[in-house]
């Protein structure tokens, strides 16, 4: 293989893509963009450009991280700075073509910012988040066309792979060990050590598996990386395979990620065509193949032993460790199982050296952490910060804080297996160890922000409901223990809780943590334990006062129309009430018939904001006495 030649061809391709002589339009079409309508925007742009006969190149890129503002379009016109536009609709797309491309109006009203220094508008890098972000894993995401391997190569891709063939397997493993890289899937086990054990296990064959079975509600880091920069993962896998002597690899990706499946498969085919995969990789004696295996949507298959069982054609159920996959994994052979982000980090370490990597992050947790920010936060999307950044920085500075002037209440880290941390924990640095002490886990990187309108008991119930339903059912603790916990939580949010439940919940949670077979069971009680620890008052309010402080639990709230605020002739709430529970009382002031109200919240939304007359009250009994609906006169 002539790598220099491939590189120079890639540069030429890139130049065509990014030269300054022509107008370029980039549309973010990862799943986050598509969900917001990016494909329609792309179609509109292409049609319009053709109609207007404009000479411009349109390309699709992956996720830029600003998922809150999707669909995102970047326009770079010769002579003016590249500008990124957010919340683009098809209508806006037409306007952009007509005004920005045809004329010289940069449409700054749609712009999020520029991508380079200029005199017109600030760049997006002036946003406070960029002070904290350090995009290593996401280095290419949103910048390159994920379907084009040349884009990856130009940005340094496959250079690391080229260099390892001058190294021994041990050298590669040493580099990774020295870098201090720990598994990004949540376990935080030393990647280099895992590879070393696998290599030394001495099986007849060895496997490398990329775990892309991202199942946490609200987490989408792995999807974004696979959709936006698949080659970084593939290169990492090849390096791992070389280090441990594997000939076959699998990307285990959820079937619910169709775009990721397609993108990775395409990337594998390309890499194979160019000689980065397959026989005699890059002219070496090393052979390695990668197959995409689609998971069928079981959360537990993110657990490595269950994932392996699933590839083997069995029901995805975990088994006891030891034996660990590193010694007895797929088909009983030594197997490396690493997360998408771990593999994506590997080429950087090889290229820049272990010391470079270990200079980033904290003493025990090196490198960066990628979070999928979701929930009640302004800038939902992907963020990547060095390990050790505080939660406050991540949520308030990078994430832009809680929207609508609401009060921050908690952040759920690590998905349903993680914990809910309160305001007081926000100064904790994010790394593998600090979070554990606080009762949460680093997890795979899901971060859901909750505000004052979220009921913490309900939040715990929600996450436990998820893990209970996703429990594989194998071990008693997880199958039955979580069910009993869930039932107790259900009773509490229904207003039928008892105080002894709290002790029982704690005891049972500890039993499940200690006694379950796999990590799903061992971590399932975390949301309950952390909410009990930090939001005990909410539990007590539910049980003793039958009150939901967040005014969320339906059984504990009632709707009340404030007579002073009701605009008597408006009738908006009466019209929308599906249960016919609102009637006009004396002087046409609207009244809620509590017996009929189904608490659907529609009236609150319908009541014009200038009146804001409908409120929720908890406990339900706190609603003042109201007049009764007049009996209908019999005809």
């Amino acid at each position, binding site marked *: 293989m002539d790598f220099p030649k491939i590189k120079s061809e890639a540069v030429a391709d890139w130049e065509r893509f990014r030269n300054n002589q022509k107008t370029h339009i980039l549309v973010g079409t990862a799943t986050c963009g598509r969900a917001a309508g990016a494909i329609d925007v792309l179609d509109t742009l292409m049609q319009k450009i053709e109609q207007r006969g404009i000479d411009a190149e349109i390309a699709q890129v992956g996720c830029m991280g600003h998922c809150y503002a999707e669909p995102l379009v970047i326009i770079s016109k010769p002579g003016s700075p590249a500008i990124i536009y957010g919340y683009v609709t098809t209508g806006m797309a037409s306007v952009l073509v007509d005004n920005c491309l045809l004329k010289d109006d940069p449409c700054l009203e749609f712009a999020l910012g520029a991508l380079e220094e200029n005199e017109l508008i600030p760049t997006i890098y002036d946003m406070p988040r960029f002070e904290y972000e350090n995009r290593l894993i996401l280095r290419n995401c949103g910048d390159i066309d994920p379907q084009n391997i040349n884009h990856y190569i130009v940005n340094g891709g496959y250079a690391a792979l080229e260099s390892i063939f001058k190294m021994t397997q041990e050298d590669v493993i040493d580099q990774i060990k020295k870098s201090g890289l720990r598994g990004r899937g949540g376990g935080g086990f030393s990647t280099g050590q895992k590879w070393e054990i696998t290599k030394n296990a001495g099986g007849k064959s060895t496997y490398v598996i990329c775990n892309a079975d991202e199942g946490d509600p609200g987490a989408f880091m792995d999807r974004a990386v696979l959709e936006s920069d698949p080659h970084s993962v593939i290169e990492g896998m090849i390096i791992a395979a070389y280090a441990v002597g594997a000939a076959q690899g699998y990307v285990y990706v959820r079937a619910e990620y169709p775009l990721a499946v397609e993108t990775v498969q395409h990337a594998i085919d390309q890499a194979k065509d160019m000689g980065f995969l397959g026989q005699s990789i890059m002219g070496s004696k090393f052979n390695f193949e990668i197959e995409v295996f689609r998971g069928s949507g*079981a959360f*537990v298959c993110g657990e490595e032993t269950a994932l392996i069982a699933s590839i083997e054609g069995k*029901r995805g*159920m975990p*088994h*006891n460790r*030891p034996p660990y996959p590193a010694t007895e994994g797929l088909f009983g052979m030594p197997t490396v199982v690493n997360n998408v982000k771990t593999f994506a980090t590997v080429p950087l370490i090889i290229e820049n050296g272990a010391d470079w990597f270990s200079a980033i992050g904290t003493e025990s947790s090196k490198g960066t952490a990628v979070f999928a920010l979701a929930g009640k936060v302004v800038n939902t999307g992907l963020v990547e910060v060095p390990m050790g950044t505080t939660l406050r920085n991540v949520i308030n500075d990078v994430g832009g804080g809680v929207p609508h002037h609401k009060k921050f209440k908690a952040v759920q880290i690590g998905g349903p297996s993680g914990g809910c941390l309160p305001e007081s924990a926000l100064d904790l640095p994010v790394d593998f160890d600090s979070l554990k002490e606080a009762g949460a886990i680093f997890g795979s990187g899901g971060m859901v922000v909750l505000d004052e309108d979220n009921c913490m008991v309900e939040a715990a119930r929600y996450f436990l409901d998820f893990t*209970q*339903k*996703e*429990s*594989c*059912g*194998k*071990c*008693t*603790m997880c*199958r*039955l*223990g*979580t*069910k*009993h916990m869930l*039932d*107790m939580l259900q009773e509490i949010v229904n207003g039928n809780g008892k105080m*002894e439940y709290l002790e*029982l919940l704690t*005891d*049972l949670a500890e*039993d499940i943590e*200690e*006694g*379950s*077979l796999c990590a799903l069971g061992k971590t399932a009680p975390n949301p309950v334990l952390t909410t009990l620890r930090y939001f005990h008052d909410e539990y007590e309010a539910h049980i003793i006062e039958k009150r939901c402080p967040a005014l969320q639990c339906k059984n504990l709230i009632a709707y009340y129309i404030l007579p002073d605020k009701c605009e008597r002739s408006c009738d908006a709430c009466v019209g929308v009430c599906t249960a016919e529970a609102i009637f006009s009382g004396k002087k046409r002031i609207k009244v809620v018939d509590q017996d009929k109200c189904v608490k659907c919240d529609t009236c609150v939304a319908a009541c014009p904001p200038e009146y804001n007359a409908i409120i929720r009250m908890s406990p339900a009994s706190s609603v003042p006495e109201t007049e009764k609906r007049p009996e209908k006169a019999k005809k």
Partner: protein
Amino acid sequence: MQPITISLNGREVSGKQGMTILELAREMGVDIPTLCDDPNLTPIGACRICLVENEQNGDLLASCVTPIETGMVISTQSERVIVHRKTIVKLMLASHPDSCLVCNKGNTCTLRRVATDVGVGMIEFERIADAVEIEQLNPFIERDLSKCVLCAKCIRADQELVVVGAIDYFNRGFDAKPATFGDVPLEQSECTFCGTCVAMCPTGAIMDRGRSYHGTASDEVETTCAYCGCGCSISLGLKGDRIIAITPSKKGGPNNGTLCVRGTCASDVIHSADRLTQPMLRQEEELAPASWLDAIEAAAEGFKRVKGLHGPEALAVISSSTCTNEENYLLQRFTRDVLGTNNIDSSARLHNAVNRAALASTIGIMGANSDLDGLEQSDVIIVVGADPDASAPIVSYAIKRAVKYCGAKLILIDPRETGLSTFADIHIRPDYGTDAALLGGMAKAIVDEGLLDEKTVVEKTNNYDGLKASLSKYTAGSAAIEAAHLYAKANSASIVWGTGLTQHAGGADSVRALINLAILTNQTSGLYALEKECNDRGAFTEPLQGFSALEMIEQIEKGAIKSMLIVGENPILAFPDSGRVEKALSLLECLVVSDMFLTETALIADVVLSSSSFAEKEGTYTNFEGRVGKLNTAIDPIAGSLPDWNIILKLAEAMGSPMPFDDINQVSDEITALVGNESKSGPASFAPVDYVAPSDDTNKEYPFKLLTVSDLYSLGSGTSISHSYRLNKYTSEVYVEIAEEDASKLDIKDGDQVKIATPVGELTAIAKVSDSIPTGTIAIPQTLPTGSANVLFDITLDNETKTSLAKTCNVSLEKVVSNG
């Protein structure tokens, strides 16, 4: 390897590397409770009851799956451990019905025992009602999954031991349960109702349906199953004088923890209401109850009268493969010493003579010379003319385990698709009766392609040149060549064969052809001749000068034999051409039949003696491996019955020549003293086979080839097992498999009633259109719920072995009634 030392409850103990904590603890006599552990199953760590604490780091470990590691400080009884165990049991009990008082599992419930042992007190968890319907459609297994603790023993038994694959985990979370594919009822699944899971279930979730609410067994007796040639070690659970549970023996045996549906139904037969409870005598054309004294006297008088009038050669005895070795020995002595004739043969001839002839003439053994473990450890297995799924279930389990878990290659030689087809690497479907040619072709491939150590073969065997010369007329197809390569290159190869090979004309030659293969490749220790009945191997003896069983029928017709004693056999159903046999037997001046039931043969007897079942006597059976299985008396003989050995002694006494035995052990001792080592030493001899291709003798009137096959839910002549009300309920119809092409030609659809006829008989059956048999062929089970396929066969004897050719015959087929 260095032993690993750990601290166990403060004691230094060591074990082998790879051993689990539980295994070591058991070895050291430390009890750790478990629900999901079973020595025959892969441990999975599901129930968590066996948690122990590693005090070194505070970890709680499931001892059944955690290997011992140097330095561990294990406590099996720490406070934390006890608390956890209690929690687990409480969790289970909180969603378990309160029906212990009426649950059949009763005192044998492991969950209840563990709950008591760990001292579960008040359960603080709210009850979760689990409204599961009790499934009770099939007559064998009843599932009440509200009692399930999901230990997954049933799933593992199904997948790891019997390899049926009928059940697996279903659903997730609290709804997880063991279920069939799509959660259909068991009878719509692959389930064979083998009962292995029933025996393993720690709670009352899976129960034997026939014996529900009969209470708990108070005693257990180990014995040997009588319902096929495998001779499984079973344990009969007793409550008073009733057998209320049948489970696999805990001591292993050939079945090693497994069972089959016939074995689980044995108690139905033993306690059948149809059992004869007293002897009967023919008085004025009618059989009437009689006392033992009168019946024995009448039988003896009959024999004496015939002997006096026509001489001893007018007497004959037919014994059975279902009689014990001791009984068969006694009958031999009775016939020769007391009656004074050599006319004794056993029904075992029908199943066993071919194998005996072929094996004796080549490698000098009497049957299989290796056990099932050897079969399971083979890396290549050939199954030819056998459907062990139906005829020898535990053999099928072993083959499937070998294929699925040990990577063995399976070569299946059978015209039909059988339960083994999906496990086979190569499935060759030869025409009927051409097995010898196929096997000859394989032998030729081995010789031609040099897949043998010719020098050793020449040195260590006889007649290699003769064999080589005989092979020239064979050719081998590509599948046969591939099979020959696999077989010849195996480290350890086995051949399993059954009636599909032996019940054709020249069956012994077909068996010789496969023995030749084994001798060529030095694999003679892997020859497994399957037997049909429980004591085929033990009951068969070469008659000394006397007539063989089927020849006796001819002799009756000729008037040479005038009186007969038939013990444990029902020739009218068991022999071909039922009509002719019945006619012949009714010519006898004195017919004495000893049986548990009033069989077709007993009905025409002059004296009927009511005999006992295998559970009511002592003795031994020799299974197909050559393993001698001990029978132990579980219950006293059912009122009015006596064991056959006792009947024979009484007859001898009444004849005036008492035999010198008081009990069965004295008979065993005499046999042991007489019988030496049965195997012949010396080099193996090749037996060149003079193969004659079967001519297609189907004709216009009888255009179809009928094939008799084995059926899991019936056995032998069906006489005994047909008295299981559960088996009867499950297969009450006669089904005939018809190839799709033939069915469409004759406009026959699934469920239509069809008539099958031969020159000697006819029967009606329900059509089952199938793609698993070749065109031009129809298949029915040998044993039918309403009788036997033997009604269709005439008595054609194999020249060499005098067995009947009851595998195929030409039949006509027509539709009688359309289904709906």
